[in-house]
């Protein structure tokens, strides 16, 4: 037990004990297994698909407690938990290994933007739908031809009085083929400088003129899609924030995304790299048989261990009142480069068996497909080059011209 004093428990300690008891009683065994891919997750939506009864039960029980998004205000269907309570809940869920009952870009990305930039009506309407898991959201930022130059977007939203007429194309819209709604950057003023003519728009994916096409990656199938808008009518009330002021919202969201990607690191693999090495290469004279790979593995593990300390240190500093600022670029850059290096090493350690792309023996090429997939880590959510630019300009103050 954490509490060894004779004094009465604090409110937070009571909350912890009650939460623990409730989770133990209510979280089905199967929902305590770690998530292996996005197909293990429940995403909600208009036409919800549960992949097991347990998943449904768990979602419904958590929904009832308003714990799908425990830290949002109660008026929007959130749990209204304080920062401290939310931390306790997370810790206790982590202790048991409970899966989040609901995944959705509405929670992780759109929600924070709505809370900050939306009007009351929008908050009321959309945040409640999000906490209830009633809409599956996707994100419409990137466009072909834009890439790192995100602000160079061409999808247009023409003012038609009561609605916008949207035309254009988005890429890298995850789950667009399954989503109910999309939050989107569109160009509302083609004459303005490129950052100034952008607006933030919510679009119903069932609108006429919206179509999607899945993108196949090097690694195989993916949740990514291309999304096409062909004379799509969008009511003006779906505009978030002011017209032509969407870039501010976009930047706010991008920082969120970057932190997510940087922080997540490698969710797929929990085994230490040297264990993987020992399994594949073995010992010789008490050291890893391949002495050159041994050095590379040690170098990687040291860098990784130290980077984790930096994450802790930064969290401690934020708690102590310092702001995170542009260092999310550092996390994004470093975490993704480390992950790529790790998979390079694993491929070397696995030898020719690691090159098998199909078949049971290789779990349908799990390793090489993940290897290929990691190559995108340093591209999506802002390339490594963009992160280095941000560091050199915003943190180091190096001149632009």
């Amino acid at each position: 037990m954490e509490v060894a004093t004779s004094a009465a428990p604090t409110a937070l300690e009571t909350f912890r004990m009650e939460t623990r008891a409730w989770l133990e009683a209510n979280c089905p065994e199967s929902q305590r297994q770690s998530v292996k891919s996005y197909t293990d997750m429940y995403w909600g939506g208009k036409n919800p698909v549960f992949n097991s009864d347990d998943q449904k039960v768990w979602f419904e029980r958590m929904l009832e407690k308003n714990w799908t998004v425990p830290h949002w205000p109660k008026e929007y269907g959130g749990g209204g938990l304080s920062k401290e309570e939310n931390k306790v809940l997370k810790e206790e869920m982590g202790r048991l290994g409970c899966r989040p009952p609901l995944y959705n870009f509405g929670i992780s990305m759109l929600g924070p933007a709505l809370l900050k930039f939306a009007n009351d009506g929008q908050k009321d309407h959309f945040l409640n739908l999000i906490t209830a898991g009633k809409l599956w959201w996707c994100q419409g930022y990137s466009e072909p031809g834009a890439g790192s130059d995100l602000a160079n977007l061409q999808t247009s939203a023409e003012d038609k009085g009561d609605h916008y007429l949207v035309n254009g194309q988005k890429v890298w819209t995850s789950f667009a083929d399954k989503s109910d709604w999309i939050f989107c950057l569109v160009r509302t003023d083609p004459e303005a400088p490129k950052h100034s003519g952008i607006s933030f728009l919510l679009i119903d994916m069932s609108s006429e003129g919206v179509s999607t096409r899945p993108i196949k990656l090097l690694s195989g199938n993916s949740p990514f899609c291309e999304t096409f808008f062909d004379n799509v009518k969008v009511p003006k009330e779906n505009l978030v924030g002011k017209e032509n002021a969407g870039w501010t919202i976009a930047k706010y969201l991008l920082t969120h995304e970057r932190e997510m990607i940087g922080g997540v690191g490698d969710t797929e693999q929990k085994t230490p790299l040297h264990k993987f090495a020992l399994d594949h290469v073995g010992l010789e004279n008490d050291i890893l048989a391949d002495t050159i790979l041994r050095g590379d593995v040690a170098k990687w593990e040291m860098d990784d261990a130290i980077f984790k300390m930096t994450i802790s240190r930064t969290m401690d500093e934020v708690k102590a009142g310092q702001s995170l600022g542009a260092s999310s670029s550092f996390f994004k850059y470093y975490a993704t480069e480390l992950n790529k290096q790790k998979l390079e090493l694993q491929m070397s350690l696995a030898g020719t068996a690691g090159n098998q792309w199909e078949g049971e023996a290789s779990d349908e090429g799990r390793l090489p497909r993940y290897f290929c997939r990691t190559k995108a880590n340093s591209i999506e959510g802002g390339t490594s080059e963009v992160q280095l630019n941000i560091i050199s300009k915003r943190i180091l103050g190096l001149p632009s011209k």
Partner: protein
Amino acid sequence: MALVLTEEQSMLKSSAREYLKENAPVAALRKLRDDKDEKGYDPTVWKAMAEMGWASLTIPESYGGLDFGYTGLGQILEETGRTLTASPLVSTVLLGTTLIKQGGTEAQKAALLPEIAEGNLLIALAAEETSAHKPTKIAATYTSLGKTHAVSGKKVFVLDGHVADKFIVSATRDGKTSLLIVNADAKGVSVERTIMMDSRNAANVTFDNAEAILLGEEGNGIAVLEATLDIARIGLAAEMLGTTCEAFDRTIAYLKERQQFGVPIGVFQGLQHRAAHMYCEIENCKSVVIAALQAIDKGSKKVPMLASLAKAKLGKTLQLVSNEAIQMFGGIGMTDDEEIGFFLKRARVAQQTFGDYNYHLDRYAKMNNY
């Protein structure tokens, strides 16, 4: 010998490039993959290659070959590396022909080499037994049945194993290591095709008392295998050179074409310096490959050293270049629609073939007694 191509070699190279661009581009590999083609290579193309003499380049004239040498074969391989062409060139010409030349009896040469030259016979070397390259650590065994023998053992990563007519298998008996020829349709042979990430052909092959004959003399298996592998490493390095150059050329072209922030991304010095560094490494790759190929043709004692130098350097550089290619192509490079990803995948398999970078680094140090 000057480290430049002769006129004949240059001509062979240009004609190969032209043929492959037309008849076996990357799109052809994609089609074989997407069609889940049973053979995994195009027999029509292979027949044409044989007709152009590509299967005969390293076969002496006395056996129906052109006796053009490995430097010539290297030019062909380099070009197939550019187009990522799946063909039996590595299994049958680079490995098969060399094994037979190095180890076979006069009769075996006379019987097999002309068939290879004609494009009628596919050979696969069944040597690897573990995921790590350890060609001389052999668990497979054979027994003598008088004139013939019987081989037992499990082999992995047998290139073109599922389409080969004959296997050449490494196995031991009473501490002697030999190479043995086994017909693919012999009893006791079972072949399981493995689909690899580069969409090229490989298989796991099990021999259960399969009937075999010795390739040449008993007990010379290690010597022939190692000599052949060194030549194969150099040939593969030549192929990897083509793959590296093509991936690089495509990347440079993309840097000039792709617009971001109103300029082609090639103006950014961060990318320029990385590209220039790759250029330097590729120049070095060209040097070691031609030096190593010429060493084979000269019968130089430095072949093993050059084989490790070439395979290591090309492994490292192709890894660098294919990774940088994806990064510089950005999101589009991650899609299966864009061909650059095929180079990344091929790079990884080529890296693991015939010993990876670390294997040859270690071997090089050992050859220099440290």
